[in-house]
């Protein structure tokens, strides 16, 4: 009998009952496997020790008081400004992790994080959860099943001291927030990113494999599609980030040259429509593809519909997409005008963010 895999040995360390009798019997009488099992066990313990942290010292009562305050205050922030000591409490309800997640969500399409990670549809692993739910955290599938993705241009990203430097680096007008929402204070940090580029090369072979994995047969690709290359480009971009003392953002305003896609062979729309016709194409990916166009006029935002509701609203003559997390904890507003994408996000209400968006100077 062949030796069980390392994965089986690893499970044997934790859950012997989860391993088949045949594997267990083999390992018990195989010196090679026993040695390997010892090594796997030692590694597991060492990593466990490295990950462990001091397990005591949490003050549950204090933590509960904090949560009660946050839970009760969160839905009524505007009203809280009328209270006697609003700032302190408003600060308490601005949960940093949520703000960070909203930044990831929005900038996935609109700004510096997009520059870091490129279009999330092509690099889904990085888009990971925008929300803290668990089992329904489906992975947004990526196009690497249908071809090869290569980065051609990695953006330079850095922090710059002020708005003037940000404008100089990116050539973009820096949006000026005329009136900060209550609870957001201080000066923003400025982050900038250069251009990013990636190419996606369609592969009929890969696409056939992806279809076969779903038990389907690939419909014949349109002439010329196999091997066609599509060049994706985005940036430069800049972001203004207002943070809590903990260093996590509460309000974020970002602007970027909108992503565009062009092709060396068949038009991108042909490839897109073909991909959309494929059996078994995951709904999420289909939605993103539908929104990606050659002229940079639409938003390839990876919005997990089960977590975020979208609506539209007018901002300075453009139609903006308004995103609100279903749990009401964060929101964002994104719009495109003249090939430039602007986004405002934070752990604020959509109304507050729309006021910021419409007041940008």
């Amino acid at each position, binding site marked *: 009998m062949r030796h069980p895999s390392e994965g089986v040995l690893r499970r044997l360390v*934790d859950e012997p009952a989860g391993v088949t009798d045949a594997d267990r019997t083999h390992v018990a009488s195989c010196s090679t496997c026993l040695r390997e099992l010892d090594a796997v066990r030692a590694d597991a313990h060492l990593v466990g020790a490295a990950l462990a942290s001091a397990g005591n010292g949490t003050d549950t009562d204090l933590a509960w008081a904090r949560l009660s305050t946050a839970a009760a205050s969160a839905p009524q922030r505007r009203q809280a400004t009328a209270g*006697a000591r609003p700032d302190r409490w408003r600060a308490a309800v601005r949960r940093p992790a949520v703000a960070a997640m909203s930044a990831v969500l929005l900038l996935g399409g609109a700004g510096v994080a997009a520059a870091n990670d490129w279009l999330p549809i092509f690099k889904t692993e990085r888009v990971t959860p925008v929300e803290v739910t668990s*089992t329904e955290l489906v992975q947004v599938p990526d196009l690497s099943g249908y071809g090869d993705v290569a980065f051609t241009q990695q953006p330079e990203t850095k922090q710059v001291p002020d708005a003037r430097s940000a404008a100089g680096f990116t050539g973009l007008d820096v949006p000026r927030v005329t009136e900060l929402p209550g609870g957001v204070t201080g000066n923003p940090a400025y982050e900038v990113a250069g251009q990013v580029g990636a190419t996606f090369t369609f592969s009929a072979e890969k696409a056939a494999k992806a279809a076969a994995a779903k038990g389907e047969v690939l419909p014949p690709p349109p002439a010329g599609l196999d091997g066609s290359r599509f060049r994706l480009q985005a940036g430069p971009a800049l972001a203004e980030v207002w943070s809590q003392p903990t260093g996590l953002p509460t309000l974020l305003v970002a602007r970027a040259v909108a992503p565009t896609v062009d092709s060396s062979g068949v038009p991108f729309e042909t490839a897109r429509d073909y991909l959309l016709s494929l059996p078994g194409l995951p709904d999420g990916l289909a939605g993103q593809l539908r929104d990606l166009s050659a002229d940079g006029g639409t938003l390839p935002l990876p919005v997990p519909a089960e977590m975020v509701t979208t609506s539209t609203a007018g901002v300075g003559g453009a139609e903006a997409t308004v995103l609100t997390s279903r749990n009401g904890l964060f929101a964002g507003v994104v719009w495109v005008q003249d090939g430039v994408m602007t986004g405002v996000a934070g752990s604020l209400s959509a109304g507050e963010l729309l006021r910021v968006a419409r007041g940008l100077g």
Partner: protein
Amino acid sequence: MTVVSSTQFGARRTTADGRRDVVRSRADVRPDLEAVFRSDYARVVGVAARVLGSRDSAEDVAQEVFLAFGRSSVPAGEARGWLTVAATHTALNLLRSGRRRGAREQVADDGLAIVPDVADLVVSRDERRAVRAALSRLPHRQAAALVLRHSGLSYAEVAAALDLSPGSVGTTVRRAESVLLKELNRHASPE
């Protein structure tokens, strides 16, 4: 003062200027939140601390997770698993967002003691930091599988939470451990 006790979640509150507002309907925050919080808070902080190495950050994550839980309709019987998974994802996101922004002090040492639970395995602070940096570079699912397993979830639970086949959890965890160990060895033996 506006500290609100748990019994006030569904209450009306009078503001300074005399207006009355519905804070939130009782249905919005689940009634068993406090009980679940009190029984699982320390555990959830522990899960997040495993990722972040910092108790302060871990407590922030725990707040976040319980806030979301309070508004969810997760069955009480599944609360513990749900909280563990949510804390893991949230903490990993935080770890990564910290790295993205130039890795400020997300993995900062805020005074964690050397852990005595595995007495003969002493892991230095440098090594802990290196392990977290490596963790932030792992593919999200791999990192999550590792943390969930070390947080006590069964292989079947890890598989369900991450949409992995049960048979591949061991391989995924083992792979993650190998990567992390390389970091540890590198720091343990600089030559």
